[in-house]
């Protein structure tokens, strides 16, 4: 495939997996005729029929629970959250049913399902449409949580998520759907549990995910000019965290900055700090620094929204301070 838009990379992943495996189907709001709110399933119903691109009524808890029942009985559902925030309404089905049921049933049932859709803070969408559910769901046992960030990894990760035998919460980002990238012509899959070293470096380890990867890379351009050499790691797997890759990096740089879009309290970064302290405390030359979103409902006003999430200049400042001032 030549240059491919992010949403088309996701579409290709679903298309390929549906062609490969008749048990794979998509359900959710407007996934069929409308083609998905971000066009990830555009026209797939014409190819696979309305049962495999199942337009559901607006009943998140019930259609998510239905997907669990279908997965328990041998199908491979892909639930699309029109906006991932809507799936707060399905919290029980995702936590109690998708996440915990295999364990509670003593291994009687497996639940191979993907729950995917746009998460994150968009452009002035207001608090309810600007959720970062990954932080809310990270405590649920039995869930894998993945955040994609480029057309390339979106496609390879989604294909792997669909083939995985476990429930996977798969986060896309509402502001990344129009990114473009050249994708391989041949089929590829990417592991769900591996972080990606986006830029090797020696001064400091920057741990990030989803759209913040791009904020970090923007900051890195300036940092490079100013003579800094940060290592950038895209976590990809938010649960479980890939401590092989993270550990290798910290043992090299001895300094960590976390850049995340979720809120500071109880966020992915909070878990990272705790786990780094557990595993790698002796490797650290400085306290781990967290750059997170503010602990507030995301405001509508553009200027306030900008203040709520981490901006590239804050990343530059944080790296320069930590490396140059040796703190």
């Amino acid at each position, binding site marked *: 495939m030549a240059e491919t838009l992010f949403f088309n990379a996701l579409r290709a992943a679903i298309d390929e997996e549906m062609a490969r495996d*008749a048990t794979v189907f998509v359900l959710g709001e407007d996934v069929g005729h409308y083609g998905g709110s971000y066009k990830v399933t555009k026209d797939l119903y014409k190819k696979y029929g309305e049962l495999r691109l199942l337009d559901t009524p607006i009943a998140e808890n019930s259609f998510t629970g239905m997907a669990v*029942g279908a997965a328990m009985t041998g199908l491979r559902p892909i639930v699309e959250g029109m906006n991932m925030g809507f799936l707060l309404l399905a919290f029980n089905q995702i936590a109690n049913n998708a996440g915990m049921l295999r364990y509670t049933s003593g291994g009687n049932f497996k639940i191979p399902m993907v729950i995917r859709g746009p998460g994150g803070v968009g452009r002035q969408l207001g608090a309810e449409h600007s959720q970062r559910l990954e932080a809310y769901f990270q405590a649920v046992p039995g869930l894998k949580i993945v955040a994609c960030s480029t057309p390339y990894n979106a496609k390879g990760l989604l294909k792997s998520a669909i083939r995985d035998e476990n429930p996977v919460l798969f986060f896309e980002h509402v502001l990344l759907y129009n990114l473009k990238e050249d994708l391989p012509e041949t089929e590829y899959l990417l592991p769900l549990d591996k972080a990606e070293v986006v830029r090797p470096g020696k001064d400091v380890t920057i741990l990030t995910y989803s759209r913040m990867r791009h904020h970090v890379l923007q900051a890195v351009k300036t940092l490079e000019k100013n003579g800094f050499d940060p290592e950038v790691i895209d976590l990809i797997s938010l649960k479980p965290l890939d401590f092989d890759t993270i550990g290798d990096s910290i043992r090299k740089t001895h300094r960590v900055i976390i850049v995340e879009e979720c809120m500071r309290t109880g966020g992915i970064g909070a878990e990272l700090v705790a786990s780094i302290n557990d595993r790698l405390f002796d490797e650290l030359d400085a306290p781990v620094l967290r750059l997170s979103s503010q602990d507030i409902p995301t405001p509508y006003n553009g200027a306030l929204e900008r203040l709520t999430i981490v901006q590239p200049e804050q990343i530059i400042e944080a790296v320069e301070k930590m490396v140059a001032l040796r703190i």
Partner: protein
Amino acid sequence: MVQERTLPTFSAASTQLSKEEGLRLYEDMILGRYFEDKCAEMYYRGKMFGFVHLYNGQEAVSTGVIQAMRPGEDYVCSTYRDHVHALSAGVPAKQVMAELFGKATGCSKGRGGSMHMFSQEHRLLGGYAFVAEGIPVATGAAFQSKYRREMMGDESADQVTACFFGDGACNNGQFFECLNMAALWKLPILYVVENNKWAIGMAHERATSQPEIYKKASVFGMAGVEVDGMDVLAVRQVAQEAVARARAGEGPTLIEALTYRFRGHSLADPDELRSKDEKEFWFARDPIKKLAAHLTEQDLASQEELKQIEQKIQQEIDEAVKFAESSPEPDPNELYRYIFAED
């Protein structure tokens, strides 16, 4: 005198029942009753813990519905009051008892407990402890049957799902949402409401604007029937009709079985709100006594044959307890097992 809703009438003469079928129904109900009585005993003796919800009095519903299906092939979905549904679905009593004892040999390997009986082998989709959350799961299983038949060309995929829940669940959104979808897509499912009049301490009439639950089916354009839930032959007949409708691709049925739990909500419930009059009204309608009378009156079974069944089941229950007591505890080294499919 307590004012009870008029139970729908049913003439046993309108149904075909062979001796063999009659005895099977009797045995299944006796199994449910004796099992639960033993649970109460074991709970008070400190052998099982947590919340334990017993099914006494409601046996005709589990037996009548599940015996009208193909146990082991069709799907059954239950609630926190799930022991007897598991038994009717064919899960061996010893596995259910061992689960209650928290043992490694339990049907959920000691991870689930009273409210979480599961058996892939017996197509028991599980006991779900939050009210109404099993309804979407069961609806998904029913969707799967339709999907296999229509999208995967599997002609043998005519499995029906029975989804059991109580009157309390019928005021929850998942009930309405799933009825809507099941009717919309003509899913092969039986929504079986066990209306035992009480959601713990909330009387049904105090919780709902239209107490006749089966009527709620009509707004979805789906079949809704009420049935005397204390009469196993009546339940079996409406279930047979609903199963036939589901297998023929004609969609779901809402069955409201009017029944009563002979014990409190759980073994921790002081049961202070239900009146003596009300209890007596329902105790007089014990579904097991009713079937026994029918079988003997119709010369389908002798007292002696019924006695033999009771003795056989008593023995099975005693063996289940022995099995549970002598079974090993789960291996502490397997604390993390079963979180993921590969475990």
